[in-house]
């Protein structure tokens, strides 16, 4: 039945191509939406192994308004349960929602690798970055989006830097920022030495996140710059509420794409069945059972859904991979990066849609009256 279904699909090329093109378009949209949802889930869903806290200025949401004294660092490091802490100055080109966010993270150069040992320098060198005060280690996605290579000089947010290396990290955020020296960024962004945007604090275990956060905030409650401390992913989820609402809405777009694909395949297969009334009757006369007729129709729907779906899903994955879109809001970045799970889910959805869409046409085909169909002109 499968080989017969394949022949039907490949020999009615134009009809099959048009159907698959429609399916591919719907599944492209679905995959893009799924990728956004998946990327957001990765950066906001807390896991048992998350041990990072973000200390931010209370009642501030944008990096340009969160200003904390750098001298808070020793006090934070002394709190029981803290394993390490790093002051970070952040400079962004746009604090609102944007698809092209440029983010500089200024960190003490000697602390970067100690704080973030997962950073992998895939081009250039860490030593070069250490040796130049205006050097930047640029995240892979950032570099790809901007077409940057090691040795380039580029200017953004009024800051001119030299690309000392390209980095790759398991943390999606790291792939979308440029790390520079803290004093350099403090001066270049005119914030001034001694002021940072936030502290990232690592605690010894996930159970210590809440008690350490409470302790940090109580330490600075009476200070001129009170703090609010949250787990990193909760910080992202809370700070990027608008972004999350926006992406949550796209869920409906994804459902719409799925419904469109379902309708398209069902309509195409139903038209195929109607156009082949006599052919189906001939097959029944030859001895093809109702089940075989239904299987043949279902196979065609499955193949149209799967082939069109595969085209759309793979196109979307490649497109998103090459474009390296980064959604940003209030200084946080969300890289829209597809992964194998999205690819697998997309293909599975296409398969299920193709199957579901063919059920009614298959039932219709298998139930048609043999004698009436043969007598039809």
């Amino acid at each position, binding site marked *: 039945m499968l080989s*017969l279904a394949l*022949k*039907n699909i490949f*020999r*009615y090329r134009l009809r099959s191509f048009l159907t698959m093109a429609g399916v591919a378009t719907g599944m492209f949209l679905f995959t893009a939406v799924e990728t956004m949802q998946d990327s957001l889930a990765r950066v906001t869903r807390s896991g048992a192994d998350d041990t990072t806290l973000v200390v931010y200025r209370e009642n501030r949401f944008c990096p340009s308004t969160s200003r904390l004294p750098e001298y808070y660092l020793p006090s934070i490091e002394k709190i029981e349960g803290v394993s390490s802490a790093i002051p970070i100055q952040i400079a962004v080109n746009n604090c609102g929602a944007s698809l092209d966010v440029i983010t500089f993270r200024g960190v003490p150069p000697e602390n970067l690798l100690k704080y973030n040992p997962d950073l992998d320098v895939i081009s250039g060198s860490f030593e070069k970055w250490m040796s130049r005060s205006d050097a930047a280690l640029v995240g892979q996605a950032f570099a790809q989006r901007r077409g940057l290579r090691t040795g380039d000089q580029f200017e953004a947010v009024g800051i001119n830097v030299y690309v000392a290396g390209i980095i790759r990290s398991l943390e999606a955020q790291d792939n979308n920022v440029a790390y520079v020296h803290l004093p350099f960024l403090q001066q270049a962004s005119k914030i001034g030495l001694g002021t940072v945007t936030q502290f990232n604090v690592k605690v010894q275990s996930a159970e210590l996140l809440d008690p350490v956060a409470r302790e940090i905030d109580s330490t600075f409650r009476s200070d001129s710059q009170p703090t609010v401390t949250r787990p990193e992913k909760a910080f992202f989820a809370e700070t990027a509420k608008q972004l999350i609402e926006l992406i949550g809405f796209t869920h409906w777009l994804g459902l719409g794409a799925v419904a469109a694909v379902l309708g398209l395949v069902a309509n195409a297969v139903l038209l195929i069945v109607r156009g082949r009334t*006599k*052919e189906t009757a*001939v*097959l*029944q*006369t*030859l*001895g*093809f*059972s*109702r089940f*075989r007729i239904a299987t043949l129709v279902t196979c065609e729907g499955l193949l149209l859904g799967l082939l069109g779906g595969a085209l759309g899903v793979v196109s979307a994955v490649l497109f998103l991979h090459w474009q390296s879109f980064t959604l940003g809001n209030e200084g946080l970045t969300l890289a829209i990066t597809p992964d194998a799970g999205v690819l697998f889910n997309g293909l599975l959805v296409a398969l299920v849609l193709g199957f579901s869409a063919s059920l009614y046409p298959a039932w219709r085909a298998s139930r048609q009256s*043999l*004698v009436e169909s*043969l007598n039809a002109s």
Partner: protein
Amino acid sequence: MSTSLIQIRNLTKSFRKGSNVITPLANLSLEVSRGEFLALMGPSGSGKTTLLNLIAGIDGPSSGDLIIDSQELSTLSRGKLTKWRSENVGYIFQLYHLVPILSAYENVELPLLLQPLSRAERRNRVEAALDLVGLSDRIHHRPSELSGGQEQRVAIARAIVHDPGLLVADEPTGDLDGESAGAVLELLSSLSRDHQKTIVMVTHDPRAAAVADRALHLDKGQLVAPAE
């Protein structure tokens, strides 16, 4: 064991069309011997095709006995009747009804897809059937690349490829020119004569009926007299 392959007794077929009951066949009795070539003639609406469809097992009688090769067809479920048809009957249509996107080879192979045969066995049988109808050189041609006579010969190859004992043909020469019709009739005659196929053929054409061993005339659902 009876020498009759087909035994029909008091066969009636009726169906409802709106508020009217139509009876295309009424109390018809008939026997067809094994290996016989029978022609059924009669005007349009006389019940020829209805009788042919009943004999082929693609329609069911309203009453009466229809026994083919000792099998009472009216006792078979739809599924079993479909299986019986796939093993025992070859159907030849007036308009050939080949699947347009399939080659001659693939069309002839269709009935064999229902049987547990290897690809090599299927190939041997398809090639033998196409050879028998004289189309070995058109094996990869699509129906659109064949003449009407060639298409009908492919349809005959499709009807015999699984070696059924019974062939039913609904006006097999009705859409062909004289020369092609003659070739098709000669082929059917040789299938009956040389391969012992029992053939029931509906035709309007007296020349076609003349090729058969026996010709019967139907009118208003009943056998009226042997055709001359």
